[in-house]
Structure formats: structure tokens, C-alpha cells
């Protein structure tokens, strides 16, 4: 009976030390209520009985039967953090037990105490020692900071890694139990443990699989959305870049009033694009576009224009094709003018001709640049700097009018070809 009382006292000290440490680490407010008192009594008695009847298996695991209830009543924390604190405090307890036992053994050896005959008393002394150590540690700031750091590091872990650590510790713990109780281990218990382990592994694997599938779905959706927005942004950039060309296409077949409206739009949205308004009478169709584009550069460039087509091209092309053809012509002209202006020879040659089936425009210009031949025409490739690299890419795309590029002896040649439509008689 005396032994049970001593063990109860020892257990109470241990529980008190652990609770105090948790109370300090979790920054719980002082809250001694019935639940706390009851869980403290339950824990003390359970630990004392286990020690008294020397149930080794339960003795080691008793911490996990008692402390979660006590800790939770002191201060409930999020499950992950709570589990971590539970494990960390348990580890501290193990270390302190080990240290106290070493100190006690050494002291006993020196002073000649007989520990075995006074085992229950020694347990109480050890428990009191651990209680004092826990109180001291709980009040050391560095220990608190270290514990929080440890907890944060674990919290940063992914679920799979966290599960792996917990599971590894569990395996280690179970392994330790089996090793200690090897002599009187029952087959039923062993089977139970194996089934428990397999179930845990199975559940974790299923969880990991579901998480992985969900993550893949999420990443795929994210990638699809990302691709969609990149494409949308590209289209938007191309639209803005080619807006001037599109407007000029309409302008080339418009009457005076429509022209005025389009000029206003061009001025409003395309301030950086240059086109001359100094021509009093603007020719109809492609000629008008070419003259308007080049008019301001007559004195700056060596320009030759050869137009072998003396009919209205608009009649020979579908509206869509005409739009695309003009858009490509304007973009090419813009590029050609810019490149020629920066070159030594400053040459631009425009040759417009037709065959039975096709209308062709060839623009040749001199240039002085370093060209990445394999990248030319690819998206975002430019020799001009950031926010460029749309022009050539945009005109390669549509098949309504085909574009080919050649470089022959420092001369850049762009050929735009489009099919004529068969006119009904």
C-alpha cells in the first residue's frame, strides 16, 4: 500500500512537471478547472497503478493515454501543433529521465546507496528531480524558442513527410516495446500490431495517392489556365500591335468620312505608329497604304516601288483575305522602314505583281543588325529590345496570306502571297 502511495506521489510529480512545461510552452492562461483536476487525478492514478503492478507495456505507453487529455484540457491547440508538442515534450521527458537516472546512478555509486532495495523511493526522487528540471527548462527562454523552432520546422513539412516521421517514430516505439517484452509477448498482440501497422500504412498510402491525384489535377488546371492566359495575352499584344494595320486595311477602301474617323482612331490608339497625313489626295487601295507609310521617309530612304497591278485588288480578294494581306503588308513595311533607317544603304524596294492565281508583294530592305537566324519569326524574338517580338511572329500565322523570309547578301526579303478569288462572270 505504501508503495502505491509513493508511486502516486511520483506520478503526480511527473504529471505536474509535464503539464507545467506544456502550460509554459503553449502559453496557456491559468485555468484550473474540474476537467484539469479530474484528468490530473486520472493520469496520476493510472500511472501509479501501472507502476505498482509493473505492467511494462502500458508503462511506456501510459504517457500517450494520459497526457493528451491533460494537455487538451489545459489548452486545446490545432491538431498538428498539438501532436507535435505532445511528441516533443515526450522526447524531453525521455531525455530528462535518462539524465536523471545517470546522475542518480553515479551519486548512488559514490555514496553507496542501494537503489534496488529502495526502488519506490528512488522513483519518487527521480520524479521530483524531473519535475524541478521541467520547471527550470520551461522558464528558460532559449528552450522555449528552440521548441517553437522545432515545432515550426515540423509544421513546414508536407503531410507525407510529416506522416513518414510520425510513422517512423511509431515503428521505432513499437519495435522497442516488442524488444522489451520479447519473452512474454503474445501472438495475438503481435498480430494485432502487425495488422495495425499495415492498416496505418494502407491508410497513409491511400491518403498520399488521393493527395497526389488531387495535386496533379490542380497542377494541370493551373497549367491549362496559365497557358490560356499566356495565349490570351499574346493575342492581345498582337491585336494591339496590328491594330494600326487593321485600321489601315479598312481605310484603304473607305470614303473620306470613314477615313477621317479611322484617322482619329489611329491617332487615339496608335500614337507611336507613324503614317503620313501630308498627302492631299491619297490613292485608293494598297498604293494609298504604301504611299502613306513611306511618304515621311522619302528623303531619308532610297525607296523604289514597282506596282504591276493596275486593277482593284479588293475585288480579287475576299474581305478576310484582304484584311490579312494588308495587315501583313503594313507590319512588314513598319519593320522594313525601321531596319532600313538603321542601315548604311537605307534601301527599300517594293514589288507588287500578280500571276494567274496569286497576288504577290515583295519587300526588300537593307539592315544592319545581328540576327539570330534560327529564332527569327519565333514568338518574342526581337532585335529591338523588351516588349517587342510580336510583328514577324504575328504575320507568319494566318494562311490567308503566306509570308516567307529570305536574307540574301545583307538584304532582308519578305514575300507575301495570297490567292485570288475566282470572279463570277
Amino acid at each position, binding site marked *: 500500500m505504501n508503495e502505491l502511495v509513493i508511486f502516486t506521489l511520483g506520478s503526480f510529480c511527473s504529471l505536474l512537471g509535464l503539464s507545467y512545461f506544456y502550460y509554459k510552452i503553449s502559453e496557456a492562461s491559468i485555468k484550473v478547472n474540474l476537467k484539469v483536476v479530474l484528468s490530473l487525478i486520472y493520469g496520476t492514478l493510472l500511472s501509479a497503478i501501472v507502476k505498482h503492478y509493473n505492467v511494462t507495456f502500458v508503462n511506456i505507453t501510459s504517457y500517450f493515454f494520459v497526457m493528451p487529455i491533460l494537455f487538451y484540457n489545459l489548452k486545446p491547440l490545432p491538431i498538428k501543433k498539438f501532436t507535435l508538442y505532445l511528441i516533443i515534450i515526450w522526447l524531453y521527458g525521455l531525455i530528462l529521465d535518462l539524465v536523471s537516472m545517470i546522475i542518480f546512478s553515479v551519486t548512488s555509486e559514490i555514496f553507496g546507496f542501494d537503489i534496488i532495495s529502495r526502488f519506490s523511493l528512488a522513483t519518487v526522487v527521480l520524479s521530483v528531480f524531473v519535475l524541478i528540471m521541467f520547471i527550470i527548462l520551461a522558464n528558460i527562454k532559449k528552450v522555449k524558442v528552440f521548441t517553437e523552432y522545432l515545432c515550426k520546422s515540423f509544421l513546414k513539412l508536407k503531410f507525407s513527410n510529416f506522416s513518414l516521421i510520425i510513422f517512423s517514430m511509431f515503428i521505432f516505439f513499437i519495435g522497442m516495446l516488442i524488444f522489451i517484452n520479447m519473452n512474454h509477448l503474445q501472438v495475438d498482440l503481435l498480430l494485432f500490431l502487425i495488422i495495425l501497422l499495415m492498416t496505418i500504412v494502407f491508410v497513409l498510402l491511400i491518403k498520399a495517392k488521393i493527395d497526389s491525384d488531387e495535386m496533379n489535377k490542380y497542377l494541370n488546371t493551373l497549367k491549362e489556365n496559365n497557358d490560356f492566359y499566356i495565349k490570351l495575352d499574346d493575342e492581345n499584344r498582337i491585336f494591339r500591335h496590328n491594330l494600326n494595320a487593321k485600321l489601315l486595311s479598312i481605310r484603304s477602301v473607305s470614303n473620306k468620312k470613314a477615313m477621317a474617323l479611322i484617322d482619329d482612331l489611329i491617332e487615339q490608339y496608335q500614337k507611336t505608329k507613324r503614317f503620313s497625313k501630308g498627302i492631299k489626295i491619297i490613292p485608293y487601295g494598297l498604293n494609298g497604304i504604301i504611299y502613306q507609310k513611306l511618304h515621311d521617309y522619302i528623303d531619308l530612304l532610297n525607296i523604289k516601288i*514597282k506596282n504591276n497591278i493596275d486593277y482593284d485588288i479588293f475585288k480579287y480578294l475576299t474581305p478576310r483575305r484582304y484584311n490579312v494581306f494588308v495587315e501583313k503588308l503594313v507590319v512588314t513595311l513598319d519593320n522594313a522602314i525601321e531596319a532600313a533607317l538603321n542601315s548604311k*544603304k537605307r534601301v527599300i524596294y517594293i514589288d507588287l505583281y500578280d500571276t494567274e492565281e496569286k497576288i504577290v508583294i515583295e519587300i526588300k530592305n537593307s539592315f544592319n543588325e545581328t540576327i539570330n537566324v*534560327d529564332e527569327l519569326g519565333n514568338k518574342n524574338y526581337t532585335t529591338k529590345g523588351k516588349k517587342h517580338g510580336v510583328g514577324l511572329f504575328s504575320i507568319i500565322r494566318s494562311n490567308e496570306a503566306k509570308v516567307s523570309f*529570305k536574307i540574301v*547578301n545583307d538584304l532582308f526579303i519578305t514575300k507575301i502571297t495570297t490567292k485570288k478569288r475566282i470572279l463570277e462572270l
Partner: protein
Amino acid sequence: MVKFILVDDDNNELEHIKGLLNEIVEDDKEICCFSKVTPELKQEIKNTDNRKVYVLDIELGNSKVSGINIAKLIRATDWESEIIFITNHDKMFESVHRSIYEVFDFIEKFHDFDKRFKKDIREILKRNFDNKMFVYKANNVDLTLYYKYILYIYREKEERKLVIVTNNNSYRVNMSIKEILTLLDDRFKQCHRSCIVNVNRVEEFNYKEGYFVLDTGIKIYMLSKKHKNEVCNE
């Protein structure tokens, strides 16, 4: 053998040019005369087997087709033949067409024609039709350069691409030094582990200082003693 293709609507002029050619060119030659664009002329243009010199009158009578159109036809397939234009006009055509069609010369009919024509033909024969070309096809663009225009080729350190340097421009291509050497002729020599030079365009090799000087006056520090034999064999 050199083939001379003369196109002029004036028969007297054709005979006159023929006479001049007979006077200057002693080697094996063939002279073909045309007064307008005919299927035979088109066939002749398409046939690129022989080295040719085209002498074209710009204005061909009342014909819609001019000498410029013929030049365009020639350059559609043949960049190696030489073209000489004969014109009544002043220099208005020169700057653009000279660049666009790689025209050797524009000679005015009524201004020292004989003297200038002879000088041009002698120059062409002396240059031995050096119109060989380097051709590289990329995804979106075909690059064609006269060998004579290429100054040197070097490998970039960062992107590991070859850079072909001409008089006015540079072109980056995805090739290795070994690969490009197979596409070039003997005038190109490896003078450094990452540089090939057109020896015809070099005025000075300085192995001591490790540079060569191009005929454009540019000094390039990519000359290694290790490759001295390759360059000197030339």
C-alpha cells in the same frame, strides 16, 4: 567557258557590244543575243550550268518587260552570274537596284560607254566569277550569303552559337565549327579553336600578338599559333 547574254532592242547596239567582247575576251566564250524576252532567253536564265555575264538594256523598246524585270527573273534562281545594266537614264536607278539585284554596274550609253564596259568585263574575268554562296535554311528564314561577303565566323561563348560576320551584319546560326567548314570552300581557314576566317579578306596575320586585320580595317584577336599551319598552307 564564259557565256555572255546580251539583251537590247537595238541590233546595232548588240553588234557593238559583241565587237567589244570579242576584243576583250580572248578565252573560250559564247555570246547570245536577244532583243526581247523570249522563251529561249527564259530557258537560258533557268540553265545555271555555265558562268554567265548578263548585259541588259533597261528599256526594251515598247515592251512591257524591262531589263529590271529580266534581272528579277535571273535573281530568282541565279545569284552567281554577273549583271551589267545599260541605261539612258541618270543614276536614279543605281542605288536601289544595285543592292536589290547585286548588279555589277550601270553604264550610261552615251557617256564613255566603251571604256567603262571594257573595264567592267576585265574586272569580272579577273575576279573569276567569285559568286559562290553559303546557304543555311532555318525554320522561318533562308539565309544566303556570298562567300566573298563573309569576313569571319566565330563561336559565341555564352550561347555556343556560330556568328557569321559580314561587312554590315552578323548572323547567329546553330552549327558547329566542323559542320560549317564542310559548307565552305578553301578560302575559309580555321585560325583559332573558335574562329574561321576568310583569308581572302585578311590583310595581316599577326601571330605574335594573336590577331588578324581584315580589309575593312577591323582587328580581330582570334588568331592562334596552333592553327598557323592550316592558315599558312594557303
